[in-house]
């Protein structure tokens, strides 16, 4: 399948992961682009963390800092709000993405805004904010170069750090030539300068800038934003209004807590000791200042996070600092790309976050789309036990619908009465010695009747066939022969 024939990612559904993955595996260009990119990112991460002692102890510290923040989350959120409010920032709370979009729209309407320029923000992707604003007559333009490229191509990000990593220079050259009428060039510098020219004009004109938040510091009421391009600085400084959107889990207790997390984030993500820009925003423009937004808003979004928080084990999902290292090291993600997941967060972390945001009924195959090789857990900078959380979600996925222990929305989406009956039978067989012996006797004698088609298993494996005699029988014969 060539890139021109690809189904636009906006049409890919999270419920069709298997089908999407099958199509993605047939896209040789995509697989080549992804392989090259992921190999490079893995090498860069390791080169930036050569000291094993420092790396492993810092990961432990990152885990403790996040766990400490989550263990007092309500208190820290209130402290964050109080300090931001004292600094002049307006704080809003939203339980759902619909509420969050309404809040953004109300602010936009109050300012009669027509153009919004957006720095990279995964939470705004969760909200599908661009489409929402466009439906209300407000243009919402992505300003991160990768996000801008895929927005032009009506796609969704394929990676949380490098949204257009699945495209090569030729594909971007085609896109800029077709959509922007630019002369065809595959020179990356020239392509970036085209993006710079177009977007600079938009920064100048925009009524509102939107950004995400990497860490929100409760102690000082500071929103921390890391980036390389400067589009985050532009979006949060040039327009008269800045709206930051973030999940409720992004709060940390103290400013010093940012030090290990920042080091872990940038090195795990891109192998960089630090990003070009670390923005620390603590308020709107003061009366005597000459630039900066006159209003700063923060929208705190729940959207399923309090559900993950409710379970002590699943709560670890919220440790995530969005570095993308788990996807860079995932053999499944590397082969199918991010868009096949049909979710905002792809890869290993997406497979444990998305079920909370969207319900297991909309992500039924995500917990299973893993070889459980453990690479994601080994590289996670804050030590989220992703493989064990995947196994846990698989359990929730097959629970009976009437199971009284309700943990998450859509649990039991893969419940099968037939499968449950088979497992019950298997348990009974293994707990009753005489039944096991009778079963073994017939299974070995009637081995010729074993079906050769066992559904998905026999698509890639030969069908299992019992031996002519069980191990117990052979052992008994052997011992009696002595």
């Amino acid at each position, binding site marked *: 399948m060539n890139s021109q024939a690809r189904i636009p990612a906006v049409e890919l559904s999270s419920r069709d992961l298997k089908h999407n993955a099958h199509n993605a595996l047939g896209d040789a260009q995509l697989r080549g682009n992804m392989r090259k990119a992921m190999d490079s990112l893995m090498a860069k991460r390791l080169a930036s963390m050569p000291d094993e002692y420092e790396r492993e102890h810092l990961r432990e510290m990152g885990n403790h800092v996040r766990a400490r923040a989550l263990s007092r989350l309500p208190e820290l959120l209130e402290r964050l709000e109080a300090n931001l409010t004292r600094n002049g920032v307006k704080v809003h709370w939203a339980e759902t993405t619909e509420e969050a979009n309404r809040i953004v729209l109300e602010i936009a309407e109050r300012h009669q805004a027509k153009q919004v320029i957006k720095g990279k923000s995964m939470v705004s992707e969760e909200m599908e904010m661009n489409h929402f604003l466009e439906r209300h007559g407000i243009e919402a333009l992505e300003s991160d170069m990768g996000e801008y490229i895929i927005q032009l191509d009506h796609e969704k990000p394929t990676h949380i750090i490098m949204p257009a990593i699945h495209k090569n220079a030729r594909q971007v050259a085609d896109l800029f030539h077709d959509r922007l009428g630019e002369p065809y060039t595959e020179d990356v510098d020239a392509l970036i300068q085209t993006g710079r020219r177009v977007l600079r004009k938009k920064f100048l004109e925009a009524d509102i800038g939107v950004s995400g938040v990497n860490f929100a510091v409760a102690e000082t009421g500071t929103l921390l934003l890391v980036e390389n391009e400067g589009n985050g600085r532009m979006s949060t400084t040039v327009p008269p209004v800045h709206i930051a959107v973030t999940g409720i889990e992004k709060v940390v207790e103290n400013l010093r807590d940012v030090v290990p997390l920042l080091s872990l984030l940038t090195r795990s993500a891109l192998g960089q000791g630090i990003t070009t820009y670390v923005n620390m925003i603590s308020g709107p423009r003061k009366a005597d200042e000459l630039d900066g937004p006159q209003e700063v808003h923060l929208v705190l979004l729940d959207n399923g996070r309090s559900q993950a928080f*409710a379970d002590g084990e699943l709560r670890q999902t919220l440790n995530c600092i969005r570095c993308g290292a788990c996807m860079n090291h995932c053999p499944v993600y590397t082969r199918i790309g991010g868009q096949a997941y049909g979710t905002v967060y792809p890869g290993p972390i997406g497979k444990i976050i998305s079920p909370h945001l969207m319900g297991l009924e909309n992500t039924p195959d995500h917990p299973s789309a893993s070889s459980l090789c453990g690479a994601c857990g080994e590289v996670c900078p804050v030590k989220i036990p992703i493989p064990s959380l995947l196994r846990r979600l698989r359990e929730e996925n097959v629970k009976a619908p009437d199971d009284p222990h309700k943990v998450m929305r859509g649990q039991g989406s893969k419940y099968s009465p037939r499968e449950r009956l088979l497992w019950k039978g298997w348990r009974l067989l293994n707990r009753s010695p005489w039944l096991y012996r009778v079963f073994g006797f017939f299974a070995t004698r009637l081995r010729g009747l074993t079906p050769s088609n066992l559904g998905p298993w026999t698509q890639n494996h030969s069908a299992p066939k019992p031996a002519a005699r069980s191990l117990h029988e052979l052992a008994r014969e052997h011992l009696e022969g002595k």
Partner: protein
Amino acid sequence: MSAKANILAKLRKSLEGTAPVADDYDVDLVTRPWSYPAAERISRLRQLMEAVHTETHLTTAADWPALLEKLLADKQLPSLLIAPSTAHGAQLAAHFAGREGLPRLKAYDRPVEEWKAELFDDTPASLTGTLGAIAATGSLILWPTREEPRLMSLVPPVHFALLKASEVYDNFHEVQQKQRWAAGMPTNALLVSGPSKTADIEQVLAYGAHGPKDLVVLILEDA
């Protein structure tokens, strides 16, 4: 109930019967591997900054205006945005005063709304001070002020930054503690570690994505 009350109620209910995790922050881990002998700080900073396309120059508190004049000529920059009310802005203005054929010095002296288009389209370079730098990561520390607003270091394609050699710290943790950041942050604080860049297309590094294409750091050794 409001969204805030609902969210907080759910979170509190989930924490019932649990105790907050103790604070076992290990200062050594974020400082010891990132500490350097005084003599090495500047060389490490330069090495890291130059690795990401930053130009650095060693100079002195007396000589930097002449060096900047030469750099402006080499780069053929017709004008420079400065903050005349700062000590360094005044020093440069005095150096340029009464001399012909030099780049025009202009001041960021009114709200950005009054000259946004000129700032974006007709301001090729700027000069700002810094609050110091971090050797561990090769980062400049900027706390924009009324005199040197935020966009001075962002919009012009070339950014000249003055750094006193005596204000280069080992690591981010040390800076926070010595400058007592937690006691009060400005509206906008920044770490800047090179010119604007992106690797979003095929991971090929390209500079000047949105902010300055060139960052030039003048390090004043006797300051």
